[in-house]
């Protein structure tokens, strides 16, 4: 049976689905009996998703600046 530390060490591969079948079954077996590791894996993923959502926030002025720049740019100016 895996220890909690071993489960957390595999958290990345568990999240990305890159564990082997044997490792996946071992983690699943551990999760059946360990509420703390279930909580950890859920929140490990949640922290990443929350950070990503925050990182996508942008200042509307920046968007307006880009649009202004495009407005001033000529059409059909292909890159070399």
């Amino acid at each position, binding site marked *: 049976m895996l*220890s909690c530390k071993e489960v957390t060490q595999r958290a990345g591969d568990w999240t990305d689905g890159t564990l082997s079948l044997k490792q996946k079954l071992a983690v699943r077996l551990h999760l059946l009996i360990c509420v703390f590791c279930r909580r950890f894996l859920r929140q490990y993923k949640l922290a990443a998703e929350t950070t990503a959502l925050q990182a996508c926030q942008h200042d509307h002025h920046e968007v307006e600046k880009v649009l202004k720049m495009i407005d001033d740019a000529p059409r059909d100016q292909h890159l070399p």
Partner: protein
Amino acid sequence: MDESKQLELLRQQDKQAFAALVRAQHGKLKAVARAMVGSAEAEEVVQEAWLSAWRALPAFEGRSSLKTWLTRIVMNAAHSRLRRRDQTLSLDQIAGENPSFWDRFNPDDGHWQQMPISWRSDRPDGLLQQTELGDCLQKNLDRLPALQQAVFTLRHVEELELDDICNELNVSASNVRVLLHRARLKLFQVAEHYQETGEC
């Protein structure tokens, strides 16, 4: 509007269609630029990239998705900025790891001795109701070693597959997995600390 119609308008350099694209993608592309060149230069990199995209759109053949194409333009702009600074994203800091997390386990049996606490919400938008947490996560993301930031951002913001991240950053699969796990573990610790203490 369906995607092919939108693409056609973009190829014709329709400004309204382009504005919609900028509004939809600017935040994600800025995050990629920030991860690669830092926040001070990210806006400039994305502006350059949008201008390049605007000019190149009439010739866009659609061999990759628009999103992937835009990400590549931003990454190219970021790479040339790094080259000008004579800097590359390196694996130098792959050895560094925050040891305090592993102290939470009993050294004898490897089970939790300091268990993870329950957070106030189980949804990202719920957690971001605590606005300071968002700023705190962003600050800590910006502080991660550059390659960790880049790997994390490509995976979670751009939602690239691991293989594509390896190709884009020229890093082995095992290193990408290590970098990604370290970045996520750090952000987990930051979020948990905030849930526990209300402080960054």
